[in-house]
């Protein structure tokens, strides 16, 4: 397929840290890393979100499906 990207597994240099049992990070702390640079994206999304969230979500009713 055209445009196929291959991402090579990176050699890991964090093994020393991994040997120390680390308690799982709280969800908020994990998320803060992944949301860096999200702010301008959120501004963009604010502009495209349907206007009345509550009504829109409530009205999205589907009939049975597989």
């Amino acid at each position, binding site marked *: *397929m*055209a*445009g*196929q*990207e*291959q*991402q*090579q*597994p*990176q050699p*890991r240099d*964090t093994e020393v840290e*991994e040997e120390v049992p680390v308690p*799982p*990070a709280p*969800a*908020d702390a*994990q*998320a*803060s*890393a*992944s*949301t*860096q640079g*999200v*702010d301008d*994206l*959120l501004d*963009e*999304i604010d502009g*495209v*979100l*349907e206007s009345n*969230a*509550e009504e*829109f*979500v*409530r*009205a*999205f*009713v*589907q*009939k*049975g*499906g*597989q």
Partner: protein
Amino acid sequence: MRVMGSETEYGIHAPAAPGANATMMSARVVQAYAQVTRLRAAGGAETRWDYTDEEPLHDARGWTLERGQAHPSQLTDQPPVLDAEAVALAYGREELELDGEDESGSLLMNMVLGNGARLYVDHAHPEYSSPEVTNPAAAVAWDAAGDLVGLAAVRRLASDTELPAVNLYKNNTDNKSVSYGSHENYLMPRSVPFGDIVRGLTPFFVSRQIICGSGRVGMGQDSSRSGYQISQRADFFEAEVGLETTIRRPIINTRDEPHATADKYRRLHVIIGDANLSQVSNYLKFGTTAMVLSLIEAGLAPRIEVHEPVAALQAISHDTTLTTKIRLLDGRRVTALDLQWMYHEAAAKLAQDTGVSDAIDGDGHTHAVLERWATTLTQLDSDRAAAATSVEWLAKLSILEGYRQRDGLQWDDARLGLVDLQWADLRPEKGLYYRLLSRNRMQRIVDDAGIAAAVTEPPSDTRAYFRGRCVSSFSKDVVGASWDSVIFDVPGYGRLQRVPTREPLRGTKALTGGLFDRHREAAPFLAELLGSAPAPPPA
């Protein structure tokens, strides 16, 4: 790698007409796409579905469900019919009576497309079934082509000022207790015992959501509890093995409808997946599952038995930290990541032993899937920001967490529910997945040109090539088609000519491309194909 394909049921919603009949709206979507293709191709491309070989009540465990015992939704071998009530609800009773004709009979509910796909009304949803492909990158392309088909229909309907606009959503639940599916199909040798498939696949399906779940705001089938989970579908599964797809949904579905030479093949019908917009998640969904099937066929699937698989499936879905440990029958406690690594290790070893992952002599796909799989599992463990550019549930979660932090929203806030829903809107200006894609925040397997080509072109290496080319080249003479047939109505032939296509790997471009190139008309095309002159009309 393996013959495979996707089926996507789209959520459908007309915000300006919340009470509109869903079946009717779905029919309008199919109708709209027929109009779009007619404008473009000046050929009908509205070939009817051939139901002859549909066998939805055959069970892979070796029996057939009696019709009287089946849930009405299981009878997919009958053309859907809109009753007068549905038509009246959509158009108004007076208009119907004025019109004086039964509109339901003229509404198009089924199309075979020039790319070899099927677009149709499945109960209350428009559904796109991709053509058969042979590798996961092609599965991504022809599945995403269905999203463009849906988009074209949505655009067409939006230009109609008489009727309310329709939105389509590539998701799996309305968060009010209803779920609709996105299914996968994989061709397998019939000789593989079905019990082996159940044993080999169940632990894999319980855990694969961490790489290909789409993410969902809401817990429980009716979202009665607030929160975010990995899978759109997990909470809707209630059984381990079964024939149903709309009730008591099973992790392993037993529908035995091969759409191919039945004593040679089975078509494994997978109903547990989420609909994916993320190309990498979709790629891994198809690629890794195909490899696990190869493990099962070789008798080399990891020997793992999960204690209470349905509960494990849901426990894994409900824990976005991926630390939940589930119990195996041998007493081990493992995470979903552990399970995925066990399968990866076994798949990598088999691929190496058989040579399919060899850089030069391999199949050209297995090596790439194995690498992408390992990278994704590693990132899920230690670099979630990186994983959020490819794993769909994490990409969606990153936006939701952004809102939670910026605006202090709780999980039950309607705006987060809207983000979840609008993530899957097929319109690029509205769909949040497409906003991320346009900012290069989502990785690609296929570029836009490749997806656009897949809307009109069939795959070259399966029988879908023959089906698609027949539909686009001889649209006025092709009156019906299905996965394993194309039906011609050609002047000079006394009756309909049904061309069987029971071998999924025949009818390829290599085998039939020249035939299409040599003939512009259906009659000589058929004469050469069937090796005979037209039979005289019956006396």
